[in-house]
């Protein structure tokens, strides 16, 4: 079950809408934050907090890419490999993450610290190659820079 503060948060969101289904997406974000990923238990907690059928919660959450349905690392690396980033060497960075951290696309490091998602353009072509770690944006990436940045996320 959710922590007391999470339930309070969901209730506050719920109060903003006439229909509880409207609060589903924000509630799923909270569930993902609380559980790390959307475990069946997390989805059921959302269903019972909002009084929405759990099948509906599952249907909605599996539609969106930002909701994860498998174990994720503590920190999520989202690396772009679209044209600008690719030209400026994003693919070597993918190999670097694999060799250095054992991190494959869609995978998770053995110690559960990071998981990697290769994502489509995040609008940072001017400073390509770019990535997001959790909600922080980083550009002009090189191998040393990545190592440096990731060192800050334990």
């Amino acid at each position, binding site marked *: 079950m959710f922590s007391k503060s999470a339930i309070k948060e969901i209730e506050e969101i719920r109060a903003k809408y006439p229909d509880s289904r409207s609060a589903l997406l924000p509630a799923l974000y909270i569930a993902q934050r609380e559980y790390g990923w959307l475990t*069946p238990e997390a*989805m*059921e907690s959302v269903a*019972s907090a909002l*009084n929405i*059928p*759990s*099948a*509906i*919660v*599952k*249907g*909605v959450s*599996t*539609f969106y890419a930002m909701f994860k349905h498998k174990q994720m690392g503590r920190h999520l690396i989202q690396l772009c490999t679209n044209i600008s980033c690719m030209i400026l060497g994003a693919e070597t960075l993918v190999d670097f993450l694999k060799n250095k951290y054992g991190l494959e696309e869609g995978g998770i490091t053995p110690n559960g610290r990071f998981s990697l998602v290769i994502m489509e353009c995040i609008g940072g072509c001017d400073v390509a190659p770019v990535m997001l770690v959790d909600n922080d944006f980083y550009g002009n990436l090189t191998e040393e820079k990545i190592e440096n940045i990731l060192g800050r996320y334990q």
Partner: protein
Amino acid sequence: MITVTINGKEVRLEKPITIFEAAEMHGIKIPHFCYHPLLEKWGGCRMCLVEVEKMPKLQTSCTLYVTDGMVVKTESEEISKARKAMLEFLLINHPLDCPFCDKAGECDLQNSTTLYGASAGRFEEGKRRHPENINDPLIVRNMERCISCTRCVRMCDGVQGASAISMVNRSNKTFVEPFSGGRYNCEYCGNCLTVCPVGAIMSRLHRHAYRPWQMEEEVKTVCAYCGVGCSFVLQVRENNIVRIMPKPEVGINKGILCAKGYFGYGYIQSSKRLTSPLIKRGWKLEPTTWDEALTIVANRLTEIKKKFGGESIGGIASARCTNEDNYVFQKFVRACLGSNNIDSIVRTGFAVAQRYIEDVIGQGATANIISGIPHSEGIIVIGGDPTHINPVLGVQVREAFRRGAKVFAIGYNPGLERHRTHNISYYPFTESTLLSYLVSKLATIKELSGENKSFESKINNFKGATLKDVEKVCRINGSDLNRIIKELSSISSVSLIIGPDIVQRTDVRTNLFLLTAIAYMLNARIYLLAEKPNEQGVIDMGCLPDTLPGGRPLDIESFRKRDEELWGYEIPPKPGLTVFEMIEGANSGSLKALYIMGGNPLYNLPDNAFVKSSIQNLEFLVVQDIFLSETAEIADVVLPSLGWVEKEGTYTNLERRIQRLRKSLDRQGMEDWRILSEIGKKMGFKIQYDSSLDIMKEISTVSPLHSGLTYDDLDKGLDVWPYKGTPLRHKLGAGDWPLTKSWSPSGKEKLYLTIEKHMFLSGTMSRYSTALNSIYQEPCAKINNDVAERSGVKDGEMVTIKTEKAQIILPIKIDRNIPDFTVLLTNNFIEKGAMGLIPYKIDPITKTPAIDGCEIKILKREYE
């Protein structure tokens, strides 16, 4: 008037409907997948594309409404090309496994593909695989065959209201799934199976057992589980029910069914059915011939009648038997046995309530059409969950809620959890206090119509509970309640749905007075929920100790004389015993013999130890049934009868509609009425009939309510009350019976037993359905988290459930929605019946049992 030209044919329409519907009305077929008459329009499959003049592109005919002067073409080269292209897309991932798909032969996808020819696709990427899911006991999902038309999801979400499945994932990995991904946790209504156009969602009960074109017979008949009386088509092959096919165009249910109706038919072919008559020799029941069994029954009954008089013999009729059976039964008891001791288990639910309401409001007050419920603006639900007792009626309540009706759910209604405006829950069994406040409050707001002055003065003089009492006894927030009552009083079109729980109370008289008062003040349509298919029929056929067929009172001589003349036999003038008086009579020794037709009182009446010892006290007990029930086990003679698909007849449903059962299986044996007339013959009475048609003829002359009614009339739709007959005329009564002081819990908080009426179960019958047993596998004691914490028990733990009468061992199941201070038990499993735990307490006036206030203890079991 709208004029539209479809394929060169001019079509005139009163009101705008979609092109698809207009075409269908005039016999023009348009291929489609996502359209279904029961569902919300979606326009997703793109198969029903048509050409509309002056519109630039092809249009989906299922979502486009006709306008005046529209010119539509449903077939053209361009349309064919578009449809072929759509099919090619749909078949990219389709396994094309028609040779072993059960749907083949009646599959929309197969038919369309044959028509437009797209079987050879141009995609070379290979098909995605997704293994068939057989984790569920009843439903197989083969998502490779799914075409994502979402019919099942729209059915589950938008019609049934269960929302148990949804479209999961996206793009070409979109599948229909329940939450678990495997086993369903749903109402098992089977309606998703009904609407699936392909072989993606199928029933396991007849998996790989048939081909649609091999069916030998299709019989339209009525479901025998509950009082709604849903129609469906039975498909029969080699004297076996292969499957049940609900049809949108057939019956009051319009193609909607529930778990019992859709999956529960298997009991009729159970190997445990009785095959030959049994008689007791020594301590054992042994098979015998029909002739011997019937002779023994006739001789023993004649003997007892001669020795002790007719009033020493009783008969218990059954709401599972047809009108014809029940009519012959009461005639048999009255004419042959010379007794008015005839009653049925309907006393514990329907009968008393209906009589009281009709007395005050008028005859036919409960004859309201179920399809009217969604048109109400307000719905009050009390005394039982309609979605569990009468599931298809419950679906109508949900539909009303979706249409904006206010649903006031009083008590424990788990099925309306997401379909109610107000949930009024109270301390167990204190509803009469709540209702009494509601009535006195409404009386101050509502103006009375003046229709029944004496009842109005009773309402005006009634002193209900004060708000303080309600807050204290029922534990309801007073200001909330006042707000709800104010809202309720402003609604003009109200349906009042009354469940059987309200009758099984110490305060039964007060409850019925209060509910009638509410219905009277709000001018509400009343629906009485019926657990059994023919509760109304039992009453109408005169299976009551003081009523003759057609609802005519026995103590009015002219009615009795009229029936005596028509029958040619005498009817005793004195009203007989009710079912509980018969049990007490058996106990005291004044009742010597009992004839039970299709009933299991040993199991369905409270305190089964007392009932059993009473019945064992009888000199002679005959039980007529299709299974060896608990009661049959202690009988002197057991006579096997025919089940619902093995005979012709009629049922009268809870809206008083008479519907026909049709014979679809052959089985050796006799119908209930035929057994009775054979015994009558051996006793020297002439109550012989050739067929159920013959009996209906007699009913239509004897019962003024059914006068002139024939089976043909029923087929033509003359099936709604008051048919062609005349209802009883009487002055509206004042509803005078002494009210009881409302029951209020005494002392400290306790746990109380409540009987669960689950939608998967229905007592003796559902026990023998392997399908229903696979989804409600074992009896359990359901409690909420608070009770579990206080009793110190865990989910799944085996505990002893103890009342002052008896105890049983059951596993605990924790469900957070169950009200506090409540232990929910079912009465559907062998040797685990909850009714037997309840003390025997009968209301002296209504003769109904009170099963409330039964204290219960949960005892932990000690292990070494």
